[in-house]
């Protein structure tokens, strides 16, 4: 696995919604090495506060451009919004284990909130494999403003996109998981990224339907390198998985869902 620490130049900062931004970097090395589902650790400035790098999924890789999709939830992500074209960002990556790319098709991607980020990279990879018609991609968010732009981009790739919003402002009024049962019988793999309750539900649905399921987990991370041992999640077999090295993508049945 190739990993790099480099400063990359910001190409673009887009504001997709109130608190959702997309940062595009000129990052040839990461672009060349990255696999869908992997992440990067981003230093949010020169200050020692925030101290630690922040983990973000690789959202898009197009040519030598790597994009990150992020939601402003605290001080690190707030600092990121101040970056503009020409600024440079210190990034370590690509890191971790991504999604299985060559399992038996067809598969269904399910994303919720910022969990949609890695799915775009994954979806483009699926297109390249050209394994025939894919089942719809299921995307959920709180409200239309957080979802529309992203959903459209999947549609532009040629996917059928089914959406769900908590407030019903776009697509199904309710949880994205409620859309899955109708589709499960047509797929041989589900790949999901989103909030833990959503992934837990999907994991149960897949378990019942005996469809393999991969989940992309989030934990607090200090290093992203497997060194601090801080990013644990309880494993079904007992003990712990380290999300940054064993994951972030794990088979749903490796995880002890609590």
């Amino acid at each position, binding site marked *: 696995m190739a990993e790099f620490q480099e400063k990359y130049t910001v190409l673009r900062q887009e504001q997709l919604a109130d608190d959702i931004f997309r940062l595009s970097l000129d990052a040839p090395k990461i672009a060349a090495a990255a696999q869908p589902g992997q992440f990067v650790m981003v230093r949010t400035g020169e200050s020692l506060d925030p101290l*630690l790098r922040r983990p973000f999924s690789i959202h898009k890789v197009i040519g030598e451009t790597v994009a990150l999709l992020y939601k402003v939830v605290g001080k690190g992500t707030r600092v990121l919004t101040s970056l503009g074209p020409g600024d440079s960002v210190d990034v*370590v990556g690509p890191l971790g284990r991504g999604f299985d790319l060559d399992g038996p098709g067809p598969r269904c991607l399910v994303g919720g909130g910022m969990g949609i980020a890695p799915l775009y990279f994954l979806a483009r990879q699926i297109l390249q494999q050209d394994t025939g018609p894919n089942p719809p991609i299921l995307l959920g968010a709180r409200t239309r403003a957080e979802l529309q732009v992203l959903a459209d981009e999947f549609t532009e790739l040629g996917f059928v996109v089914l959406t769900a919003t908590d407030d019903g402002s776009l697509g199904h009024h309710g949880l994205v998981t409620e859309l899955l049962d109708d589709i499960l019988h047509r797929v041989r793999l589900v790949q999901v990224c989103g909030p833990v309750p959503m992934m837990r539900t999907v994991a149960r649905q897949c378990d019942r339907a005996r469809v393999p399921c991969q989940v992309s987990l989030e934990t607090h991370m200090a290093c992203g390198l497997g060194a601090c041992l801080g990013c644990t999640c309880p494993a079904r077999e007992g003990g712990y998985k380290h999300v940054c090295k064993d994951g972030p993508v794990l088979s749903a049945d490796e995880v002890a869902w609590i």
Partner: protein
Amino acid sequence: MDLSVNIGPLRLQNPVMTASGTFGYGREFAELTDLSRLGAIIVKGISLAPRPGNPPPRIIETACGMLNAIGLENVGVERFLTEKLPWLHQFATPVIVNILGDSVEEYAALAARLNDVEGIAALEVNISCPNVKRGGVAFGTVPETAAEVTRAVRAATSLPLIVKLSPNVTDITLMARAVEGAGADAISLINTLLGMAIDTRSRKPRLANVVGGLSGPAIKPVALRMVWQAAAAVSVPVIGIGGITTTEDALEFLMAGACAIQVGTANFFQPNATTTIVDGLAAYLEQQSLTSISQVVNSLRIDT
């Protein structure tokens, strides 16, 4: 220009080491840091048997620092020797093994097990662990138990012995003298300060273990003060640890009397912090027209 230092019987090409628990078993940083350029690699603390560690959450960021309650997760000494150590043989960089235990006997058994192993340059004894027989009070907060552990390890190994002190004490010089008297070849400090954080939304501790160890730039002033006090109190070499992030930081510890330093938390956010400091120390010597890093050690000037 001579960056080399002696830690008791151990000679290092430069004074920059990695702090235990912040650099994995070395391999984790291999693509981001040139391991051959380090003074020494100190690996994650090892116990006799493997330990699963604490439940999550285990880490949380604080102002200019972080709390960790990893709970001493490690693969245990046997897997360390078969799975982790051999990979490090490819480098000439000395490997120092950080050891931990629940009891004096466990420390001694570990030291004995590691004594004849090839490719181990020294042991660093983490005495910040709870003494299970004495109600969980850390070995490193009572001079007598700290000395007891040191003596037991000393008797069990002929390897150079570094004892790593806990900062959670009233008088660090008492601890330093206690372990010096019990046979330590060198002293390293500080381990983490005991701290805590609360999630006010859930009203729960942010660490599953409730309390954890505070590290990073936030603790540097406390660490520097303790290193200065300890270096004045003992005659064995002192290794400075605590918040070291930049060359400036390293120089402060050397000037305060440390003859070498360890970089901890900084590795997480600056994976090449160690080699950057090695370069920085060389540049400093050149700029100051000094020939040896030993001219910097203990060079603090106090007006009287």
